[in-house]
């Protein structure tokens, strides 16, 4: 085509010039610069324009109870920082805590109380509905399902259910399912004589042997453990603690280990027993009963780990270490013999004591002598579902948990919900469960809330960690405790007498009043008002001195039942996403954008497959595969993962939402769909007892990963992913 007349290109050029001129002249005019400033009508005493105001509060993105200090500027929360004095996290925060502001200011939050079908209602109508539910339902037909945080709400609900004569609230959630807290608690009771979650003082241990405990990602109190890990490695001059991890899939915790032993799934308990026997042999004493019953050579063969490695670990434990801890947790407790594995591993701690090693296990003393309401076991939730299915539950209140998403479909929670005439959710988001509810009465997010959390694990002293609002509520939400208390007052009579609190703050003030009499706290106050001010200022109450003492366990009998698995080719490890946790934070864009530590993948669900297995199945990176278990099927994108057993695949939990918000919805897959509803001997979910088959779909999806597309020029500048490549890259630079 010859260039004749005015071409399209010329017109575009002219339009471009004109457009730029128009934009510059109008967009940069005097008006573009001007804003309006709205000074306070009445400025709070503490506010200075342009200066930050800091509020101490507690993180509720997981139940660990880390202390936070939130920076606010003129009424807006700007940055989350760790509370440097808090005994759990000592100033540090994890990625999930950092991103909490994206929950507070999330555009997809539920903005006000609603009825089924999305019709907006007033808070008065909401309170009426709750009051009617409490008044008109026979007590045994009322059920509360709560999350593991906050504790003050659980305690208030407990009082209400006691006054009504209703069953006590169940506390559960996806993270609780993956942590198998009941299993650990029962094993601790058997070995240490205390029915509570043990804390392992890895900071002062010379050798840590972790059996599946992913204690630096999501397990129980990850920031406390990460802090201790730093101290274990380089905290004591001349002494560097060593970490050994036994589990089928290399978790982020295992990736930091000096030795990773990928034992065959289900044999971890035997490995613990074999290690115990070897240690006793090195020490020259006769191993006690459960340890003596195993033959290390046989175990090594069965577990597919080299006997030489086990011997070396045993020798290191006996000859080089003053203290050794063995931690059971994570996926290892998720087999149907998980309860035995927990006992075997804890018994190993007891054996180390018998061999003269210092104990590094302690129990966090419960704040004020009152343990928080313990979480339910999977078994308890299953019986709730059975009662719901049988039509025995007329009213179900749900707070702090998203059961339709977090619990296996095999449990049938969603179907059971349809049998409950009245379901009331207090979720701050339009989550999967909220679709099934009659009323959705959104609670504040924790940054707008009052409350407290009794620290259960990770602290060496009593800690009552305080919540306070750091900003005024962003939307028309209301504290669940206030809604319940308003309803209680509306019902009146004996119930109002038994639960005599005007509002949430009064309830909390009554609950913390006893601490004022204590003279071992970090502060003393002469009157309740001053105590309350100190309580909020410090972010809670804890004792000046560490009071937790190491405990000595006793060797107990351990069952040696083999783990049973469903039919299939490959073992399936489902683990909570290190950043999204159980998925409740999947709508926080920066948690989606933060690369997964191990795979550097963002914004999607991947399936980790050993490169050797992938080669056998003809799979490559970015292939979409269909994973089928006896209970369900999902599709996920292949990530060739060197740190996993060839007979195992792993999928993180946290994505695959069908609701929750724009950044979470229709993204990735939820591997919980693959899990069964079976339990172990302690009543916790046997979520690791599943085997699956993997099918190639022929489709591909490019995973967003940080590792090979760093920089502004994309694919062309792949960064070195192995040490060999790094060295090659370095030498190239030198050439």
């Amino acid at each position, binding site marked *: 085509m010859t260039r004749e007349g005015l071409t399209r290109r010329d017109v575009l050029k002219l339009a471009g010039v004109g457009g730029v001129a128009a934009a510059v002249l109008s967009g940069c005019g005097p008006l573009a*610069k001007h804003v309006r*400033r709205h000074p306070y009508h*009445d400025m709070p005493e503490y506010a200075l324009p342009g*200066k930050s105001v800091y509020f101490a509060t507690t993180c509720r993105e997981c139940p660990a109870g880390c202390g936070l200090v939130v920076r606010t500027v003129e009424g807006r929360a700007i940055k989350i920082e760790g509370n440097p004095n808090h005994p759990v996290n000592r100033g540090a925060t994890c990625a999930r805590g950092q991103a909490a502001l994206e929950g507070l200011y999330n555009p997809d939050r539920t903005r006000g109380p609603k009825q089924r079908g999305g019709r907006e209602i007033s808070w008065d109508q909401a309170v009426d509905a709750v009051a009617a539910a409490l008044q008109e339902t026979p007590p045994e037909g009322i059920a509360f399902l709560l999350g593991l945080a906050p504790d003050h709400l659980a305690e208030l609900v407990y009082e209400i259910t006691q006054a009504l004569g209703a069953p006590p609230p169940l506390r559960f959630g996806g993270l609780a399912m993956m942590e198998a807290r009941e299993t650990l608690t029962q094993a601790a009771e058997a070995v240490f004589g205390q029915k509570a979650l043990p804390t392992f003082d890895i900071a002062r241990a010379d050798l840590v042997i972790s059996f599946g405990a992913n204690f630096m990602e999501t397990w129980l109190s990850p920031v406390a453990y990460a802090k201790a890990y730093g101290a274990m490695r380089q905290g004591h001059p001349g002494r560097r603690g060593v970490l050994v991890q036994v589990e089928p899939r290399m978790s982020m915790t295992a990736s930091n280990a000096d030795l990773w032993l990928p034992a065959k799934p289900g044999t971890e308990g035997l490995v613990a027993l074999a290690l115990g026997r070897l240690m006793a042999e090195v020490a020259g004493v006769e191993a006690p009963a459960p340890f003596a019953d195993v033959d290390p050579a046989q175990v090594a063969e069965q577990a597919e780990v080299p006997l030489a490695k086990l011997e070396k670990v045993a020798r290191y434990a006996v000859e080089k270490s003053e203290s050794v801890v063995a931690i059971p947790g994570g996926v290892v407790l998720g087999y149907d013999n998980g309860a035995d594995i927990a006992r075997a591993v804890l018994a190993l701690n007891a054996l180390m004591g018998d061999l003269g090693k210092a104990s590094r296990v302690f129990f966090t003393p419960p704040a004020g002598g009152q343990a928080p309401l313990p979480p339910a076991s999977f078994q308890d939730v299953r019986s709730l579902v059975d009662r719901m299915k049988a039509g025995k539950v007329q009213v179900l209140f749900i707070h702090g948990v998203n059961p339709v998403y977090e619990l296996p479909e095999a449990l049938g929670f969603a179907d059971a919900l349809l049998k409950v005439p009245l379901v009331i959710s207090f979720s701050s988001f339009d989550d999967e469960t909220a679709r099934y509810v009659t009323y959705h009465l959104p609670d504040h997010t924790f940054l707008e809330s009052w409350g407290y959390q009794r620290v259960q694990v990770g602290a060496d002293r009593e800690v009552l960690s305080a919540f306070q609002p750091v900003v005024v509520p962003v939307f028309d939400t209301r504290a669940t405790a206030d809604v319940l208390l308003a309803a209680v007052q509306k019902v009146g009579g004996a119930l109002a007498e038994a639960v005599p609190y005007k509002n949430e703050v009064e309830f909390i003030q009554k609950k913390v009043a006893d601490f004022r009499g204590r003279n071992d706290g970090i502060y003393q106050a002469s009157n309740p008002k001053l105590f309350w001010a100190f309580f909020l200022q410090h972010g809670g109450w804890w004792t000046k001195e560490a009071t937790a003492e190491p405990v000595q366990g006793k060797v107990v009998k351990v069952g040696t039942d083999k783990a049973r698995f469903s039919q299939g080719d490959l073992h399936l490890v489902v683990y909570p996403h290190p950043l999204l946790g159980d998925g409740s934070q999947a709508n926080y864009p920066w948690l989606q954008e933060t690369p997964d530590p191990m795979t550097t993948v963002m914004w999607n669900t991947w399936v980790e497959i050993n490169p050797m297995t992938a080669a056998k199945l003809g799979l490559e990176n970015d292939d979409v595969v269909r994973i089928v278990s006896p209970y369900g099927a999902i599709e996920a994108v292949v990530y060739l993962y060197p740190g996993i057993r060839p007979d195992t695949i792993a999928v993180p939990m946290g994505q695959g939402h069908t609701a929750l918000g724009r950044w979470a919805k229709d993204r990735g897959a939820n591997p919980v769909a693959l899990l069964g509803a079976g339990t172990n001997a302690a009543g916790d979910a046997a979520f690791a007892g599943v085997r699956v088959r993997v099918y190639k779909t022929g489709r591909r999806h490019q995973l967003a990963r940080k590792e090979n597309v760093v920089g502004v020029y994309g694919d062309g500048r792949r960064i070195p992913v192995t040490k060999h490549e790094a060295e090659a890259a370095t030498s190239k630079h030198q050439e």
Partner: protein
Amino acid sequence: MGTPRSQWKKAVLTVVALVALGGLVLGATWLYASQQVPPQPLEFNHQVHVQQLGLSCLFCHSNAARGKSAGLPTTNRCMGCHVQLEPKTEAEKILREYFEKEEPIPWVPVAIQPDFVYFSHQPHVSKGIACETCHGEVGQYTIAPDLSKKQNMGWCLSCHKNLAPEHFTRLSSCETCHK
């Protein structure tokens, strides 16, 4: 090589395009010229407060000595005095309306910096620089004039460049004001 017909067509198209472009530029210029800084919600008179009554700047802009922003007085601060005064002028009446509605007064700032400029009053005030040095003879103003055009980077540096070398390094460094 075009035919006469196509050349004719080209000329017409060019004229049309130029007219369109001219119209666009004219329109934009009109937009630019017609843009006015919005009026203040009420005609606050600095002359009366500063020159006649002798109020210190810090009485109302109390944060200037200790923070980044000098701050605008709260409505309550205004009413601390005005509550005892019969509202006579239009401005006083408007003030009272805002007070009674318990609403902030939506002021239009006259000394405003772009988003990428980080100015802090505190170090300037603590070095003894008088408010008038940057804000002009405020005591003479009836209505404060728009200073945003005048207060540009060259104007900032007109002081900074005269500083002693040990201060100049730091106070001429980009990151002092841009971050």
